[in-house]
């Protein structure tokens, strides 16, 4: 099992004829993902290395039966692209676009909630999602992800940061630990999918035995996750929070990563997670080692 996406997921790429869409779309297909189509208005009828291109998401869904979309378009176009996919009935939308204005994200989130409550958006500004060996949507390098072992103890990963997501996958691979699904929720102020959404899915996924979570400074998503873990998550967890030394008032790259008004500090987040029973590492490697100990104790 895996969460959100698996070997049956059929994906279209919005922006397949653009630089990013083509590069990552083809990589995703090479990984084994069922990339069944692309969407670029005005380029319907063309193909990208054998992947048919359609004028609209509705056309693409009608022709291919796609149930997921990979949005790889510039920030100006991303909000409309997401809502177009939702309107066409796509259930799972991954948006990797970096630089979407927060006001647009808030409107898109509210619109999805009101008009398309069954659609899940991952991102924007996220690395995507990979269920190793089954499906990879986004920019994760598939080769650093260890597929789950059948009947073994496997880990689910959820992370707010791109490179630290890879780091987490890599740490587990070094330890020979399989991953059911790795979800990068992205570092923006209004992510479509939260830690809590992913934790709930992992808790219910029989193949996932433990959960590794990577957070960072800013906002209160980790504190909300801690509350949820305390009440609902029985599977063992390890975590890492980036940004202990980040100065207040400075955005550390991600639009959401800022300590302001004394809120959103790494220490506060680590304390909240520890209080919820999560083993918190001082760096990504330590979080990986803590997870290895957890897996050992479960076997």
């Amino acid at each position: 099992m895996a969460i959100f996406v698996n070997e049956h997921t059929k994906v279209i790429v919005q922006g397949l004829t653009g630089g990013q869409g083509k590069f990552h779309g083809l990589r995703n297909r090479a990984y084994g993902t069922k990339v069944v189509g692309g969407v670029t208005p005005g380029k319907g009828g063309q193909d990208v290395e054998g992947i048919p291109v359609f004028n609209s998401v509705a056309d693409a869904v009608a022709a291919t039966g796609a149930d997921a979309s990979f949005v790889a378009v510039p920030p100006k176009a991303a909000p409309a692209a997401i809502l177009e996919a939702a309107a066409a009935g796509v259930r799972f939308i991954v948006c990797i676009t970096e630089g979407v204005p927060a006001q647009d994200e808030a409107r898109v989130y509210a619109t999805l909630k009101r008009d398309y409550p069954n659609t899940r958006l991952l991102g924007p500004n996220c690395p995507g999602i990979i269920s190793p060996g089954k499906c990879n949507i986004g920019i994760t390098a598939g080769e650093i992800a260890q597929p789950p072992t059948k009947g073994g103890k496997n880990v689910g990963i959820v992370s707010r940061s791109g490179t630290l997501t890879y780091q987490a996958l890599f740490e587990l691979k070094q330890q020979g630990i399989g991953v059911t699904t790795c979800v990068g929720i992205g570092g923006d102020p209004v992510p479509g999918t939260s830690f809590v959404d992913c934790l709930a899915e992992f808790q219910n996924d029989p193949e996932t035995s433990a959960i590794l979570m990577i957070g960072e400074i800013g906002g209160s998503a980790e504190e909300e996750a801690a509350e949820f873990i305390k009440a609902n998550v029985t599977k063992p967890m390890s975590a890492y929070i980036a940004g202990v030394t980040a100065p207040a008032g400075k955005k550390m790259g991600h639009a959401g990563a800022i300590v302001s008004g004394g809120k959103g500090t790494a220490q506060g987040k680590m304390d909240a997670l520890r209080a919820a029973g999560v083993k918190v590492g001082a760096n990504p490697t330590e979080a990986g080692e803590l997870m290895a100990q957890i897996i050992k104790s479960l076997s």
Partner: protein
Amino acid sequence: MDLFEYQGKQYFASFGIPVSAGDVAHTVDESIAIAERIGYPVVVKAQVQVGGRGKAGGIKLANNKDEVRTHANNIIGMDIKDHKVKRVWIERASDIAEEYYASFTLDRAAKQHLLMLSAQGGVDIEEVAAKDPTAIVKLHINPIVGLSESVAKKAAVDARIPTKAQDGVASILVKLYGCFVKGDCDLAEINPLILKPTGEVHALDAKVSLDGNAAFRHPEWEAFAATQELDDREKLARDKGLQYIGLDGSVGIIANGAGLAMSTLDVVNQVGGKAANFLDIGGGANAELMTAALEVINFDTKVRSIFINIFGGITRGDEVAKGIVEAMRRVSLRAPIVIRLDGTNADEGRRILAEAGIAADKLITKSTMLEAARSAVAIANGKAV
């Protein structure tokens, strides 16, 4: 991007929010000219992005030309909590009957807009909230519903704003909300929002933070960006298009990805060092990017060692290594590099670095983040590698 008060007031005015007549001055003569134009009494206000201006003597009332000269002369060039005053805002002084507080932000937990309104303005709102949480009305606004005049009026009533000021406050709230949404603000705050003895409601201060991601639809922001107070290192980095934040340690940091860069700062700190900067070179790590990054780090004279922390995902380790070797040929570095290279094709990358013919004390390769951090910190602290 945080705006200065005068920029915030100009931004407010463009959304129809009433602010005091005023203008910005860089010199004493300009200050006097503005005061003569708008009429006395005026307030001379230091334009710095730090609290406590008034206590530091950065806000003064002037009743005539001589007083403007004295105050402007004292304030321009003044140092307020390490912020040098380069300009002052001269505005017509207002008579104040009452002071309120109003702000709009995005509540990330609720994923909705948040209005905060209080009849107790003019002071630190955090203090008001701590002493008496009921003194602040917090109202969530659905971004696709927006804020109507009637909802704004109800908020004013709930905040115990006096009847005579409620309509004026409601009208400003709707305009401030428009500024927050259409103006792409992370924060739009008025403290104090004043009631004049004549009955008008008016923004006496402006705190505006803009969402940099929305710059593409706000060409008018270019004027604001030009006045951002960056240190020389940050200016150079901005010119080169790098995500750089200057810090005050001695270990220069280059990493790919914001999360990994933050994590690198943390690990350096854990092993007893201090980072000189935050620098995220993003997904790619070609020779051009690496050269630009090393030039910026090299410009910082406090840097004693350079820690390059790269995780190869789609960017392959061998490409990164070639980029570093090429960049080291182009830039004459004053500090040695400690590199940790992991991920896709890392072995190949490390081989390229080892065979590049670079002196062993100029380029040190470590296989984990922690080992590399220890080595970089040891060098920065003047100890053996």
